[in-house]
């Protein structure tokens, strides 16, 4: 969410009331200790006007030798809320930096002036206040899809020369509503035609050589602070309502490069409403099932959580191969990806609070990966080959049908949080975090990831995620070879005489991981560092069908990662122990991570769904 009108507001409050003085202490060597002094507060806000549900961070610099911070208050009381209070002392200084986030209410009808006050804890007479104008006028842009559906999906793609029809809904405008004005950025990249107060048509340029992003903005005439945007990617070809753009671009965290991560954008809404947020930096993961979104990325949403009859919240636990975990409530949201809608989908909201987590979930792992820095993403979109996160080969492990004691995926926690000793609970399939693809109207049996070939390394690589297999003209299997999975969603890879029976294809893995004696890197120890790039090959074998030899390169990861690039086809690393794998009955893996996807169209068909043809899912194909 951006704010159209950025003004700087500074209030310097107060005022030294007391005269500083020093006394010489009688003991301990005669150091001087100031006992009293001036207290002052400088208050700062980056904006002065807000719209419903939006937030602003307020910061206060407190000059106080006691290094006490401030307390924050709102007037009128309860008009909006304060959160994320922080207070940081600067060592060896009398300055304290305090901050708080003010969030405007979502539902009100009249323009209101809100006063936020910071009061010194040391001296309550010292206060600084700032006034913010909160307008009830809000704008939501809806996309009128070629199918006739109208969706609040704020990320779209169209082909060059094609058009996109948009509608604007303005709420709480002074009647009669004056509607919105429309603009496109960068200016001149396509045109807006038929612009009216509530609708417009965007005409894409006739020719683009590579994917081009434009932003279309609707701005309320009455309140220019109230805006809504749609991000449109114009493709040379291949666009469609069942196509989402993916980017291997290092991920959403400034200063941190997520190597070989394919990221997309989704729009999440409170169920059945147009109260939505668009979140970018979502990792596309064919190695897991279900959407897992950081709570910190959806502050404007109020997603209902699943509760049992006693008011306990159903919490979900997702264990990772590295021993870490994701923890947070099972929540209901409408998910929009390009022109596809997954209504009332159950998702995991990764909780921001460092609350107590049952040891059955943490299992010795690290703290909940609940920040963009820890996760490397704003969320994970699990579009792998299973319909929910507790189903495998048609067996539901969490609903009590296959085992009386459920695994460590779901916990029922009271409002004060779970105890570390709490044990998992049984949940039905309809209460489990769901692969959102299975909820799409017709393109619901799988996904295709398409990435162009990469030689060496690239800073950014754009590709597409196509939903459905054989459901539209743009997602046919064609001549791709199917490799079906065994009952653990694995297949076999034969590599240098080793039969790796637990192998898999996974867009959520950054590298090709396999057992080998190539030395690991000195710096990036999770990867291989051969002296020079090595060309090797391996044979993929489906459980009962599919066989192909794949050639690939293993580069020196320390050299590769020393650049600012993000896409590396030759990134590989160790998984398991090389010498154990030649033996029969050994659980060894070849993890065909994202490097395998470059230059291919990789299909993942979902277990239990129907795909035209003779091989029942789950399978991969390329």
């Amino acid at each position: 969410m951006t704010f159209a009108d950025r003004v700087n507001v500074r209030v310097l409050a107060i005022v030294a009331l007391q005269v500083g003085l020093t006394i010489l202490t009688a003991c301990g060597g005669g150091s001087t200790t100031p006992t009293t002094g001036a207290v002052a507060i400088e208050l700062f806000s980056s904006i002065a006007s807000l719209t419903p549900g939006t937030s602003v961070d307020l910061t206060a610099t407190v000059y106080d030798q006691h290094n006490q911070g401030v307390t924050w208050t709102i007037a009128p009381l309860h008009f909006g809320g304060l959160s994320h209070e922080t207070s940081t002392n600067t060592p060896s200084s009398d300055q304290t930096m305090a901050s708080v986030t003010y969030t405007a209410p979502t539902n009100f009808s009249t323009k209101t002036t809100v006063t936020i006050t910071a009061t010194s804890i040391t001296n309550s007479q010292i206060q600084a206040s700032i006034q913010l104008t909160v307008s009830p006028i809000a704008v939501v842009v809806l996309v009128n899809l070629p199918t006739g559906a109208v969706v609040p999906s704020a990320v779209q793609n169209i082909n060059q020369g094609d058009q996109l029809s948009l509608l604007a809904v303005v709420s709480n405008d002074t009647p009669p509503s004056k509607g919105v004005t429309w603009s496109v950025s960068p200016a001149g990249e396509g045109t807006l035609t038929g612009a009216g107060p509530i609708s417009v048509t965007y005409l894409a340029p006739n020719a683009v050589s590579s994917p081009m992003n434009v932003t279309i903005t609707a701005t309320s005439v009455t309140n220019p602070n109230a805006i809504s945007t749609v991000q449109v990617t114009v493709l040379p070809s291949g666009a469609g309502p069942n196509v989402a753009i993916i980017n291997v671009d290092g991920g959403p965290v400034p200063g941190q490069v997520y190597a070989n991560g394919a990221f997309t954008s989704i729009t999440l809404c409170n169920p059945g409403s147009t109260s939505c947020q668009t979140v970018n930096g979502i990792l596309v993961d064919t190695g897991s099932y279900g959407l897992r979104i950081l709570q910190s990325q959806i502050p404007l949403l109020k997603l209902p959580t699943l509760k049992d009859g006693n008011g306990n919240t159903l919490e979900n636990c997702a264990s990772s191969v590295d021993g870490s975990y994701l923890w947070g409530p099972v929540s209901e949201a409408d998910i929009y990806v390009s022109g596809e809608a997954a209504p009332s989908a159950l998702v995991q909201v990764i909780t921001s609070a460092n609350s107590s987590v049952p040891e059955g979930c943490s299992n010795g792992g690290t703290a909940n990966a609940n920040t963009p820095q820890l996760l490397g993403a704003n969320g994970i979109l699990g579009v792998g080959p299973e319909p929910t996160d507790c189903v495998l080969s048609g067996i539901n492990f969490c609903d009590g049908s296959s085992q009386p004691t459920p695994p460590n995926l779901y916990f029922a926690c009271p409002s004060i949080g779970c105890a570390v000793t709490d044990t998992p609970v049984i949940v039905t399939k309809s209460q489990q975090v769901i692969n959102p693809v299975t909820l799409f109207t017709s393109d619901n049996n799988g996904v295709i990831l398409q990435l162009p070939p990469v030689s060496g390394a690239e800073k950014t690589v754009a590709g597409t995620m196509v939903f459905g297999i054989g459901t539209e003209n743009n997602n046919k299997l064609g001549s791709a070879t199917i490799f079906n999975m065994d009952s653990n969603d694995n297949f076999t890879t034969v590599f240098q005489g080793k039969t790796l029976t637990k192998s898999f294809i996974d867009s959520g893995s950054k590298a090709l991981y396999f057992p080998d004696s190539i030395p690991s890197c000195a710096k990036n120890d999770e990867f291989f560092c051969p002296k020079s790039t090595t060309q090797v090959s391996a044979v993929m074998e489906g459980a009962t069908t599919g066989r192909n030899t794949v050639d690939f390169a293993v580069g020196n990861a320390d050299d590769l990662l020393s650049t600012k690039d993000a896409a590396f086809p030759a990134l590989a690393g160790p998984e398991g122990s090389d010498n154990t794998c030649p033996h029969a009955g050994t659980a060894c893996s070849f993890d065909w991570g994202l490097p395998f996807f470059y230059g291919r169209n990789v299909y993942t068909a979902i277990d239990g769904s129907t795909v035209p043809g003779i091989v029942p899912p789950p399978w991969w194909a390329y």
Partner: protein
Amino acid sequence: MKAYVHGEREFGKTRTRSLAAVFILLFAMSLPAFAALGGPLESVQADQVRLNAKLKIIVAERYAIQEMTSPAGTVVREYVSPAGQVFAVTWQGPFVPEMRMLLGSYFEQYSRAARAHRESHVGRVPLDIWESGLVVQTAGHMRSFSGRAYDPGLLPEGVSADDIR
């Protein structure tokens, strides 16, 4: 080296009769039980009941393997020395087993190492912990996890880390 007898060879079918006999005795006498890495072989029964697991015992030349399969299909193997000490554990299946139970006194060391690993890497990376006294390696994806953990210092004479799989 002929130390390893293939995993599916069942209890009592090895060529090394004398050692097998020792294990038979050991298991039969004590109703041996699930134990953690580094721990003694004690009562299998309690944990077998707790895990609701099927138990299989495999005897090799220089060690024995207790293999338990949970109803969800997660297979846990414990490698037991002739002295009755668990020197390695492996797991494979849809769910990660309870690491505290599996690793016993090594759990805290594992936990510290796993945290350090997670915090020093962006995104998910298979564990490859090599510390003095503890090696842990993992692989897999959601609903298919595998791994092994052992203490190099506890390996019985003639047993190599490559035997642990």
